[in-house]
């Protein structure tokens, strides 16, 4: 397990380096170079040279690249151009908010999605199955930011006071208040993931129920309960985890959107506001953090996969390389 984790982490590190390279290239590929953003239009040559020197942009590209990667890896992220606050400080506050929102939404909705999918497969062809099938398609189709907007409308205008429709209460403002402020963003963020999970689990469970080993189990008189909960579910979880892994990116992108709808002070909101304010040190740090979170989450899913599928373990231990 450990050696697998290390190998995978190595892979993730390579990808992170690729991401950094891409970010760096995107900065430099812009017309007029990255300094344009700092200078505005029609700067004087003196001002331009000063800014270039200040940002280190007069040095060769490879040296800039090394500095760039180095500063990210050493977490020497500089300070905000607009407020002067150290970027690391700014990011630290924000990322706790985003992580909490993401985790709550993810855990609750995954549980609901899996439950719905499993129940639908168990009651295949019955009313509950139909409800889950339709419900999951609606859930995964609903545009999250629009749903958020509607919720803001409903809870802000029509039934005010039930749940806060905007903003974020910190722990200091009271546990109840804090939790109440999570409800709507988390609901909106995770609903489409739940739809996808429910649907995937339902399909893979139905597929698993057709497998040879289930037929053999039935031929020995195993009851349906055992077959569903111990055998089919155990097999169906594997493709579901794959789908969860594939959805992580969407999930993180969704957080950017939802934080802006509900005015949640997370990294997603920071990344948008800093880019729009041309506050590049902050924007780049927030971007790299987002990519890093995605890679870590992917890594966790990979390890989970390794833990639940013995075939992957065996393949890793004795893979023939032709």
């Amino acid at each position, binding site marked *: 397990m450990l050696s697998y984790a290390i190998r995978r982490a190595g*892979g993730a590190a*390579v*990808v*992170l380096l*690729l*991401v950094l390279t*891409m*970010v760096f290239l*995107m*900065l430099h*590929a*812009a*017309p007029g170079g990255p300094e*344009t*953003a700092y200078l505005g239009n029609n700067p004087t040559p003196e001002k331009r040279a000063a800014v270039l020197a200040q940002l280190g942009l007069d040095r060769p590209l490879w040296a800039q690249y090394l500095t760039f990667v180095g500063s990210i890896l050493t977490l020497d992220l500089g300070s905000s151009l607009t407020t002067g606050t150290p970027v690391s400080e700014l990011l630290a506050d924000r990322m706790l908010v985003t992580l909490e929102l993401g985790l709550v939404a993810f855990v609750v909705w995954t549980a609901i999605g899996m439950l719905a999918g499993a129940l639908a497969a168990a009651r295949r062809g019955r009313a509950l199955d139909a409800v889950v*099938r*339709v419900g999951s*398609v*609606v859930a*995964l*189709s*609903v*545009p999250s*930011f*629009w*749903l958020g*907007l*509607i919720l*803001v*409308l409903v809870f*802000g*205008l029509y039934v005010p006071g039930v749940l806060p429709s905007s903003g974020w209460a910190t722990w200091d403002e009271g546990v109840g208040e804090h939790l109440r402020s999570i409800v709507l963003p988390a609901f909106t963020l995770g609903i489409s993931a739940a739809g996808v999970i429910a649907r995937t689990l339902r399909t893979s469970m139905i597929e698993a129920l057709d497998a040879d080993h289930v037929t053999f189990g039935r031929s020995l008189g195993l009851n349906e309960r055992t077959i569903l909960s111990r055998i089919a579910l155990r097999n169906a979880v594997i493709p579901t985890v794959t789908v969860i892994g*594939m959805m992580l*990116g969407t999930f*993180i*992108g969704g957080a*950017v*959107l939802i934080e*802006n709808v509900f005015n949640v002070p997370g990294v997603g909101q920071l*990344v*948008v506001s800093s*880019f*729009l304010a*041309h506050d590049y040190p902050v*924007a780049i740090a927030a*971007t790299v953090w*987002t*990519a890093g979170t*995605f*890679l870590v989450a*992917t890594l966790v899913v990979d390890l989970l996969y390794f833990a639940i599928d013995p075939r992957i373990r065996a393949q890793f231990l004795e893979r023939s*390389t032709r």
Partner: protein
Amino acid sequence: MSSLSTSLRAAQRPRRLARLRLLKRPHLSGLGWVGLAFVIAFCLLALLGPLISLDPNERTGGALEAPGADHWFGTDDLGRDVFARTAVGARLSLFVALGSVIGGLVVAVPIGLLAGYRGGTRLDNVLMRIMEALQALPVFILALFVVGMTGTGSSEFGPLTLTPEIKVIALLAVSFLPFFARVTRAATLVEVQQEYVDALRVVGVPRRHILFGELLPNVIPPVLVQGFLWVGIAVFAESALSFLGLGMQPPQASLGNLLSDATNSLMIGGWWLSVLPGLAILLVTIGINLLGDEVERLLSGRR
């Protein structure tokens, strides 16, 4: 002997007939028909809507009029007809969505095909790592980079003029690359296991031809189904980008802009501003998902 052969043909006939029937009349389930209806409804809105509606950018009524006979979807705070703006937005969404999915597929399919054909090799590894890196950057962040660098309007790249539409299409296409490449690669990995691939190599058929002439026709159907499903996602993503102010810019009507504008009037009433354009998005995404499921089911032969 002649009677024997005719009867033999008779025995085989049911199979043929059944296949013909399958081609002529698609066996859609109830949900499939609903999906098809939704998709057609959205296409009608996008293609016919702008022709029959009022001018989307002119004041044609009072501010914030509720839906009624004159303004089916009501008016916004500037007195513009919301139905007209929704229809134009839908047309834009459809154009951007189709463009980005097609663009993404054109680039991603060869990548996935090559990676799958050389599955497990270094080339496969490198290609997939690059795709993973792309995937690690949410489309909004890519958009922020592009908008931050080039602004929200049209920009000139040498002789090329990049309109906001083209920028959004390119952005979405790039962000779809990893998914399309992955799906293609997975389908190719399965297909390469087929014995005919080895047989063609033994015959001496060049690799380029095996990839594009022989593997592609078998790999493309499931990939196209995925592509179709992604049209719905693209409609959503386009509106989300515009909503964040990173896509189309006002006064250009797009579904995302309409919703973004609606936030201004949210607390003073005007539910129709946020509900109705959003319903248009919901309509097409649900429709595409339902229909896509059906096509996938028919394709895989599952019941």
